[in-house]
């Protein structure tokens, strides 16, 4: 219930304290306005990156301090400000309200809720631009951040406090990986922040619905700027999201932040820079576009135990054009991050989803944070897959193959199939251990070709239904010993034996149908 008395009391207090209030501020007047850029004469004591207040209550950001004018970008009211309007300095940089209340909410880059729900009570305010943690305050990345995606957790492991780039062409499933990772943090005590930068409002709505329906909003905050937002808001979004993440990190919590995507962020910054008449460099980006991203990503860190041990894991996303990872922004961000997950449209279209290119994807620090069991059984994975790919290229020439080569090829194809995973179907660490153990054993030879993915899903269902104790027995922090391995394989063999029978009937029927079809083709 609303306490009318308390509200009345507050108003009376405010009115009384406002009596005799006089405000001494610096001001200037707008001498140019266009494309969301204003030039102001006056404002002699304004600082770089200071928040300005334009007559009418609009906010602006001072970015160019010149001899006799100040260049600033407007966050709103582009079409409302007029020549000669007053602009006040505020003495503050842009601040982001932060607090626990932001979880489950959708806010704009200035911290205002845009989900139509109640106001958010800010526990504190943090500057959106904040120095990254000092060297001595940082700790070692030693805890894994499980994405729930087998291909990533086994071969490109991500640790809490790491910055892992997700890069690829449009429509290759970049956002899907990030969303799956957020969904997988349920019950993991990780706070997630999804920052959308210049996304289509329709795709953003879809993402938010997914997060909501799958119960991920409880621990997630969405900071969004859509494609129709002004460039300054898009520019601000990742820094605001990071400020919110820092609030939790400095309280000892683990945070996952997704920047979707930084190529649009660079474009927004390029827009602002060109309009502010800053010199253009390569691809018309301004000279400080590297610093733009490096200062953002440096703020993702793992703090030392003395500093509370919190962490920010950053998953920046960069979109490439026609697979060109040597363009300006991709190379910049690749060099800043601790590794990248490279997605390819060719793989995606041939049904390998997630379309991770294992050869080009790396994780530079996550390995040390990997759980012992996973590290043990996925050690050979990368090498085996590389061998398979090399052979697969040879196979295209159709030469006769000896038995050994044929076996490597079969195994490789089945391993690749094992790494295929449907969206929203995340594996737990124990499930991954089962799948990896089975897929690297002799058992796979019994499984028909192209059935591997279905078999894996079926096997996990079978184990959950009939052998739940087996999963309990697996300790992800210990190596898988021979006894456990044998037990896993035994269960898997039971499943394979009983379902291969069913399948072969089906396969026969299919083959028959096909041969009939072929026969009719010949006629």
């Amino acid at each position, binding site marked *: 219930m609303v306490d009318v008395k308390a509200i009345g009391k507050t108003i009376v207090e405010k009115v009384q304290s*406002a009596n005799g209030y006089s405000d001494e501020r610096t001001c200037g007047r707008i001498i140019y306005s266009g494309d969301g850029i204003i030039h102001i004469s006056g404002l002699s004591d304004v600082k770089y990156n200071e928040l300005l207040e334009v007559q009418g209550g609009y906010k602006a950001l001072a970015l160019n301090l010149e001899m006799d004018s100040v260049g600033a970008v407007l966050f709103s009211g582009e079409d409302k400000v007029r020549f000669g309007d007053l602009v006040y300095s505020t003495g503050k940089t842009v601040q982001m309200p932060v607090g626990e209340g932001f979880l489950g909410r959708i806010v704009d880059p200035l911290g205002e809720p845009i989900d139509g729900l109640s106001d958010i009570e800010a526990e504190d305010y943090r500057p959106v631009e904040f120095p990254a943690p000092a060297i001595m305050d940082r700790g070692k990345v030693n805890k894994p951040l499980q994405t729930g995606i087998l291909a990533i957790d086994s071969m490109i492991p991500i640790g809490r406090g790491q910055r892992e780039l997700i890069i690829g062409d449009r429509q290759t499933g970049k956002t899907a990986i990030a969303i799956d990772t957020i969904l997988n943090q349920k019950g993991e005590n990780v706070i997630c922040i999804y920052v959308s930068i210049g996304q289509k409002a329709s795709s953003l709505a879809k993402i938010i619905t997914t997060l909501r329906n799958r119960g991920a909003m409880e621990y997630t905050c969405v900071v969004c700027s859509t494609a129709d937002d002004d460039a300054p808001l898009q520019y601000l979004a990742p820094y605001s999201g990071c400020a919110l993440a820092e609030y939790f990190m400095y309280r000892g919590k683990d945070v996952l932040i997704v920047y979707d995507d930084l190529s649009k962020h660079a474009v927004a910054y390029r827009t602002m820079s060109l309009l502010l008449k800053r010199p253009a460099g390569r691809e018309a980006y301004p000279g400080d576009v590297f610093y733009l991203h490096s200062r953002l990503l440096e703020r993702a860190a793992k703090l030392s135990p003395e500093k509370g041990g919190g962490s920010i894991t950053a998953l920046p996303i960069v979109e490439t054009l026609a697979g060109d990872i040597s363009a300006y922004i991709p190379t910049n961000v690749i060099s800043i991050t601790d590794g990248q997950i490279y997605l390819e449209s060719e793989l995606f279209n041939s049904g390998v989803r997630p379309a991770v290119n294992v050869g080009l994807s790396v994780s530079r620090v996550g390995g040390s944070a990997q759980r012992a069991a996973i590290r043990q059984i996925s050690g050979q994975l990368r090498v085996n897959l590389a061998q398979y790919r090399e052979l697969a290229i040879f196979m295209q020439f159709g030469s006769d193959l000896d038995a050994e080569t044929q076996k490597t090829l079969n195994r490789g194809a089945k391993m690749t199939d094992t790494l295929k995973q449907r969206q929203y179907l995340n594996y737990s660490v124990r499930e991954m251990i089962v799948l990896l153990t089975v897929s690297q054993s002799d058992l796979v030879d019994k499984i028909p070709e192209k059935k591997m993915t279905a078999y894996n899903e079926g096997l996990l269902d079978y184990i959950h239904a009939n052998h739940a104790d087996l999963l309990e027995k697996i300790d992800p922090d210990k190596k898988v010993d021979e006894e456990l391995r044998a037990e896993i394989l035994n269960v898997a063999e039971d499943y394979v034996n009983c379902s291969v029978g069913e399948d072969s009937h089906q396969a026969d029927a299919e083959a028959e149908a096909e041969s009939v079809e072929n026969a009719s083709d010949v006629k």
Partner: protein
Amino acid sequence: MTNKNNITANVILARTPDAETEAMIEKFVQERGCGKVKYEIDKSIIGGVIIYIGDTVFDGSVRSRLDKIKSDVTA
């Protein structure tokens, strides 16, 4: 900017000032090193006074007080 003696102070009031108010304003302005005063009447400030000296604005208008109360209460 440095030599404020040549600067005219712009004073905005809601109604024409009486002699006493004028004297107070002139004293205030001179303390801040301003030689001349220019008066302007603007009813929209409701009451009080706004004084511009160069880049600095001293806002003691009723309008801005009400705005401040409004933003404090609604926030």
